[in-house]
């Protein structure tokens, strides 16, 4: 009861715009309850382990939509406009705070020790052509995913695999599409969007194409293919460590 009062006070302070960490007073029992609430209210989208599904991976130290713990509580309470993240008005204030505490704990596991020198990795990143496909902090080409916050979204093991065997680290929802039109044109590109009747793709020259599926002669999905080239032949093991260390450190706050 006492803990609950403290939490209510923290929530009240929050709503009054004071700068207090709403998660500071959480006990182990609160976190346990947060875990239970998470399983019931959040896991259907974010996965039982919080590592993402339809919803974002929450086992990360930084959230795109929540700069600090106060913002995290607000996001859980109010949802995120224009996304599948709905308000959780069925939770009481202290339950929102408990859930936030649990969500925060998911990303708190100490990141695996990454060998390698980030500064060397940065040099490699720039000299080996990565910016010709990727943006970091606004610089680079937009063909591939923006890597500005990639270290906050993906773990080191995933990033290392992506560098060595890109096809073994494909994100759910990503697909390469090969299309043959009725008039004999062949277009290959990344899926930007798809519904039951239409598909939108972005080709290797970064142009969008939109098709009605019924108009196509053929459409093939390559779910285990990626335009990302594997790098092992070009990198020494030490260089691979450096590059991984650099990417792991990209958290959008440079």
């Amino acid at each position: 009861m006492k803990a609950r009062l403290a939490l209510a006070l923290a929530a009240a302070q929050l709503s009054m715009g004071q700068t207090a960490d709403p998660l500071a007073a959480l006990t182990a029992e609160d976190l346990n309850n947060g875990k239970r609430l998470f399983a019931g209210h959040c896991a259907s989208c974010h996965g039982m382990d919080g590592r993402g599904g339809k919803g974002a991976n929450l086992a990360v130290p930084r959230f795109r939509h929540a700069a600090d713990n106060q913002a995290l509580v607000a996001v859980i309470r109010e949802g995120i406009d224009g996304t599948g993240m709905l308000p959780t008005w069925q939770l009481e204030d202290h339950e929102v705070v408990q859930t936030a505490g649990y969500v925060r704990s998911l990303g708190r596991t100490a990141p695996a020790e990454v060998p390698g020198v980030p500064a060397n990795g940065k040099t490699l990143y720039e000299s080996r052509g990565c910016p010709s496909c990727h943006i970091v902090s606004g610089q680079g080409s937009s063909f591939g995913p923006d890597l500005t916050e990639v270290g906050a979204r993906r773990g080191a093991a995933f990033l290392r695999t992506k560098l060595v065997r890109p096809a073994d680290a494909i994100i759910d929802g990503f697909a390469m599409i090969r299309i043959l039109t009725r008039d004999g044109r062949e277009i290959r590109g990344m899926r930007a969007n798809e519904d039951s009747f239409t598909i939108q793709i972005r080709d290797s020259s970064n142009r969008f194409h939109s098709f009605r599926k019924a108009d196509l002669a053929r459409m093939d999905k390559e779910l285990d293919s990626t335009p990302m080239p594997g790098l092992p032949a070009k990198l020494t093991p030490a260089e691979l460590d450096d590059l991984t260390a650099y990417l792991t450190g990209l958290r959008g706050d440079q």
Partner: protein
Amino acid sequence: MTRLVLLLTIAFSSAAQVPYGRIRNAEREPESWLTYSGNYAAHRFSRLNQITAANVATLKPLWIYQVGNREEFETSPIVADGIMYITETPMAVSALDVRTGRRLWNWQRPIPRDLKTLGFGPNNRGIAILDDTVFVGTLDSHLTALDARSGAVRWDTVVADYKLGHCITGAPLAIDGKVITGISGGEAGIRGFLDAYDAKTGKRLWRFWTIPEPGEPGSETWSGDNWKTGGGPTWVTGSYDPELNLIYWGTGNPGPDWNGDVRPGDNLYTCSLVALNADTGKLKWHFQFTPHDVHDWDATEIPVLLDATVRSRERKLVAMANRNAFYYLLDRATGEFLHASPYAKQTWAKGIDDRGRPIVLPNTEPTGQGTLVWPSLQGSTNWFSPSYNPVAKLFYVAVREMSSYYLKTDVKYKPGTLFMGGGERALAGDKAFGAVRALDVSTGKIQWEFRLQSPPWAGVLSTAGGVVFGGSNEGNFFALDAVTGKPLWDFQTGGAIVANPVSFAVDGKQYVAIAAGHALFVFGL
């Protein structure tokens, strides 16, 4: 101008005179849509034939009504005498001029601060109408009667205590002088029931508990006190046979959902279809689809009443495409099991035996690490409606092809909180897909399918014009050929479709309506 005023006056003065006889004979006035599924037999079939397979390609939006809520918009409209009645979330009803979409009245009530919807979103699927009154179930478990002309409250009855996790999301079913409502709360350890209320006064006439208490038939399928938290909610609108005077209603999962260890036995009458005497609420027969369910496969799908030849005899049947992946036919007078066949991929049962009991495969129960089973927790289909086309003798169902790792955890009941004992990790993405499938009603054989990008949350409507309408998560509202399944028309609504289509006519012109995203779309030629 004078003519317009006169026209509107006529339309409004006859508003909402919807006696029981009109609903019972709904087939005679296809210009209206008088009950949740279109008729008491729950066919979701329109006898209008102006929109056809040949001309549906020219369908276009006529008006759009936007709602303010951010939650899923699941309403299935009711249309009577020029007025459309819809529910909006979290707790509102609107009456719309069916010609223009302009709002005539709106009723709403604030949500209690401490209200929770445990296990689902703050949704509502529609109203019921009878005589001059509109009935709506609310998230805080009231049944509220509104004057159909003004939205003023006629009466308001508390159905159950929302603080224990009770909630009403389904549309009520109005029959002769009575309003039937089910209840949600299967993830909160409620004891489920189905209620009938006097349509004039709001007084409760009967209650059927879906979980028997000690000493009653069926109580031997429970042990100790676990019947008190046994679940068996009744959250989707059932059907009614006026001749047999029986109400057919599906029941949901036992509580807790995924940890069956704490509730040994078949757990009657969960995951069942019950047939109740409409006057007394007494159980005439029951059929349990999934005894001792541990996958959350509620049997709350729409029970469709139809007559067809099965085992070489013409019979009065009730058909259900169940969440557990099997299509069932029962004799609706006696409850006798007649047929079951899979209509979607399933890996949990070897088959269904001659008495209708599933032959459950070993190692399909949830575990701490997760057990991979088809279908997923949300089942091969769910609350969204199927459609029965009595001309083509086809049963259309929107199907979800998806699997899940089912997880089991420890669980302890605490009033007003989630009581589930596990969960799922669904295999979504490109591995999962959806379909609209047409089943032969007598054999359950799949006659055709139309593939969908992802497992859908939208129901289907079929029409005498030979068209089947459906919707997708990606916002497509579409029309298929009722006989071949060939796509004929589609429209991108810009928001996920999590609702059932209806059809009606205005001034002799056929309309089709669907809730999509945060707007209601009405289409015509």
